[in-house]
């Protein structure tokens, strides 16, 4: 992982406050746990029916019946619980899920999120992403600022099929921390070595820049 990306993961880990119930999306979001102290008081939720996710296990120590929603072999911790898929999403939809960290293909300046389908190229189904994005109390996106071809992912409006409307509160990228506000994107922090001009050039929508010094991460 690039240095900027690992600093983004470390910075996003600060989203997780003591006592929260949190769902981490597959990929980069899963890695934020590496930046939390081992005794940090948080309840991690997995869609396939687990609260209290323990460490990932190597194959020769794994339990064949115990995976996370991404298919990784995980473990339990003292206090873990198993439940069925209806209970799992009851937790998501009823407001008990404090935070979800998700990946994104596109995020719009009004908080719209597209992260499940690229018509004609990628349509494996949304799994639980729609419920997570629509119902978690706080929805935070972690993504590279641009796609592999260098196209911006932060846009005036999403072009891809939506996962949820107006739900993204904040975006962590390898270039910046950006909030979604009633007035559109607002820069909060810059990655070390990134200039405001570079950020503007890599962003597909206007972005409000603070007058004061901009913190870096």
């Amino acid at each position, binding site marked *: 992982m690039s240095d900027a990306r690992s600093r983004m993961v470390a910075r996003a880990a600060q989203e997780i406050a003591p006592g929260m119930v949190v769902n981490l999306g597959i990929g980069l979001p899963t890695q934020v746990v590496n930046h939390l102290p081992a005794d940090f008081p948080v309840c991690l939720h*997995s869609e396939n029916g687990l609260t209290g996710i323990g460490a990932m296990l190597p194959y020769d120590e794994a339990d064949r019946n115990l995976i996370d929603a991404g298919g990784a072999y995980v473990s339990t911790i003292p206090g873990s619980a*198993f439940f069925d898929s*209806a209970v799992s999403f009851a937790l998501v*939809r009823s407001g008990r899920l404090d935070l979800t960290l998700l990946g994104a293909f596109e995020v719009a300046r009004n908080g719209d999120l597209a992260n499940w389908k690229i018509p004609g190229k990628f349509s494996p*189904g949304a799994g*639980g992403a729609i*419920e997570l994005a*629509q119902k978690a109390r706080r929805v935070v996106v972690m993504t590279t600022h641009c796609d592999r071809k260098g196209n911006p992912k932060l846009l005036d409006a999403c072009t891809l099929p939506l996962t949820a409307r107006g739900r993204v509160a904040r975006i962590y990228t390898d270039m910046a921390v950006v909030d979604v506000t009633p007035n559109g994107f607002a820069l909060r922090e810059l990655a070390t070595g990134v200039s405001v001009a570079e950020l503007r050039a890599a962003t597909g929508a206007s972005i409000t820049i603070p007058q004061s010094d901009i913190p870096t991460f």
Partner: protein
Amino acid sequence: MKLPDKSTELHDVIAAIPNGATVLVGGFGVPGTPFTLLNELARQGQRDLVLVKNDANEAGMGIDHLIKNGQVRKLIVTHLGLNANAIAAMNSGDLEVEFCAQGILAERIRAGGAGLGAILTDIGIETELANGKQVVEMNGRAMLVEPALRADVALIHAAIADPFGNLAYAATARNFNPLMAMAAARVIVEAEALVPLGGLAPDAVETTGAFVDHVVEIKELSQEYGIVRR
């Protein structure tokens, strides 16, 4: 009084599934997938099946055998990203796929199992998952009508069963199994261990055998149940 014995043989119970049946299949990834029942269904070759499952397993495993054999007319799933065969069959038009949000699939099945007609939800509203669905207003909010799902057959994997069909599940192998075990006209269970009546304490029973029609003990766990080394 004694509870009835529903233990039976694998061949006979799968042979009772007709062509064209709608079949609920438990499992989320490997855990909870009834591989023994599915492999017998693949061997017997019933066709025109409508399968309802969280995911399409992986290539060469579980319902992928049925898809490859051309036994599946339609698949209702939440996600099939781990099965390139299923994606190819969908993209070529050989396999009709209906996507459903994961928790809504669970609730549609639960509603079917509870004798209800539908659920109301705002999940997927204003996205393409709402296309073609009825919208009603409830308590001042727009809601999608998601019909209950009830099937001809449910194929269930349990860790422990008794001959009456009382079931207990293991870890994340629970997933859709307890819900599907309530939502079909013919509920078929494969169990890793078949214990005598009384072998499961009443407090340990997660699905009452009153919902279950047939119980098959798995003679030997095949490789498919094991750890997947990716």
